[in-house]
């Protein structure tokens, strides 16, 4: 039998799953089913990341998109929908508009993808890839504190440092987001009544 390239095979499986479920999200009318299809589609995208050796990005995709967003989405649907199994009806003009917009985006992406020469064929032979380019997250962490491991060979000190110095702004933004979330939860909760209801109402039982 012919040689089976498992990498290609799993790439095709994950890519087909991502695209197929994405189309299913659009076609389906049931909101919770759409959420389920979205989970599968985003999960397949994370599979693509794992296939490319980007473990951290794949796990991030699972954690942030698949986990966080969709749990929140399901929460939103379950807390806000009026009846069981809420359905969404899309008017025809919205279909037309979205097809035009999506087609336009697809055309741009296809044009860009085919215009990159290196992507057409395997132009870099396997011997050129340095074996030490192990898929670790350390490079990302080092880049945040100002060392770009991929640019160490460069002589110019300024380009070698890359876009360093983003650690503190990054931390500030993330802490800011947490504060905003806590504030939103505080504002959204129901106001506590001044006098909470007394459960064993002594006066009434005594009168009996």
């Amino acid at each position, binding site marked *: 039998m012919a040689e089976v390239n498992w990498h290609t095979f799993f790439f095709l499986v994950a890519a087909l799953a991502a695209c197929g479920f994405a189309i299913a999200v659009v076609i389906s009318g049931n909101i919770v089913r759409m959420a389920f299809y979205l989970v599968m589609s985003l999960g397949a995208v994370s599979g693509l990341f794992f296939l490319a050796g980007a473990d951290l990005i794949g796990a*991030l995709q699972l954690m942030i998109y698949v986990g966080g967003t969709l749990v929140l989405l399901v929460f939103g649907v379950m807390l806000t929908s009026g009846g069981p199994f809420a359905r969404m009806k899309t008017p025809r003009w919205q279909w037309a508009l979205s097809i035009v917009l999506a087609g336009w985006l697809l055309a741009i992406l296809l044009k860009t993808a085919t215009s990159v020469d290196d992507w057409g064929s395997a132009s870099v032979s396997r011997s050129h890839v340095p074996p030490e380019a192990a898929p670790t997250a350390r490079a990302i962490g080092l880049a945040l504190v100002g060392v770009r491991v991929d640019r160490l060979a460069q002589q110019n000190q300024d380009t070698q440092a890359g876009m360093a110095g983003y650690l503190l702004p990054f931390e500030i933004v993330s802490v800011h987001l947490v504060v905003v979330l806590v504030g939103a939860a505080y504002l959204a909760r129901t106001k506590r009544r001044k006098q909470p209801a007394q459960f064993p109402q002594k006066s009434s039982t005594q009168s009996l």
Partner: protein
Amino acid sequence: MAEWLKGYLDPPWLAYLAAALLQCAVLLAVVMTAVAAFNWMERKIAGRLQDRLGPTRVGGRFGWLQSVADGIKLLTKEDIIPAGADAMLFRLAPYLSFCTAFCVFVAIPFTDKWVALRLNAAVFFILAVAGLEVFGVILGGYSSGSKWSLLGAMREAAQVVSYEVPMALCVVVVVTVAGTMDLVAIGKMQSGWFWDWLVFHDPFTFLTFWIYSTCAVASVNRAPFDLPEAESELVAGFMTEYSGFRWSVFFMAEYGSMLAVSILAAILFFGGWNGPIPLAGLLGLTPQHGPVAGFLGELLGAINTLGKGILGVGVMMWLRWTLPRLRIDQVMTVCLKYCIPLAAAMFVGAALWTYAFPGGLILPARAAPTEPAFPLAAAAHNAGEQ
């Protein structure tokens, strides 16, 4: 393994396929056997703790056939889908839970060499995948078309999503101390005697373990945090409408994730495959003494890891049959007002500790065996500095 199989199987792609399937089969076999054993263990522990009889008359010594009888019963039960349910999601939900609960084991190392997939960010991967189990439960509860199920699913969502935060913070404490997210490296750091375990590394990791175990019990919905099921209030919570095989799939997912969080605790805090006594090293079961000795050493390590995990599951069962169930507001209070601030304080403390005593306070901590990720780049960097 694929390289070794290539010598026996003719086309190389078949060798890769066989290697992958073999690893899947081994993992599945270990976890499924563990699930069957936990089923029996649960009954026995419940019987001991609550003065029940437990399985005594089912065939076999100590009633071990009870699990088999349970399995046959579940398989032969009628499979019911409620008329008001969303049939497709109702069917899919248990498998979603099951798959995510079992995916976790792909990244869990049983010894430093016996790991299906050594990920650089294994801890993060495990937390991310384990957090997805809730989605199957929510879908199951929602698609059942029943109020009990929906209430159970809502509780599950609130509880699990909240408890993921302190649990992740606890894991971050260990990651800070270890300096890596690679579980194999974290395990290797703790090689030696039990005082090399990270739980005894400093007071903060010691306290972090207790917070982690609280959050782990809550995140797998075991009593006293089993609000999503809550037999006495919600019939069976999100599983009310499930019967037969689908119910047992949820059940297997629950036991699978119990084992996963326990093994994760064993690796993060209790040395994983490094026993209280370095038995394999003392007996000379290392690869230096030949392949057989090396294999026996690895086997001992895997038994060690699994044993610690099973001990953790046993403690969860002990808790379940000892403590009464909390109320939902109490569950959320424990998480938001106690676990998260405590875990955050432990994180700051552990960070300060590693800053103040980089080599450990009394015993010099073993440096993490970090192989440089970019030897070429590191060399270039050093050359540039000189």
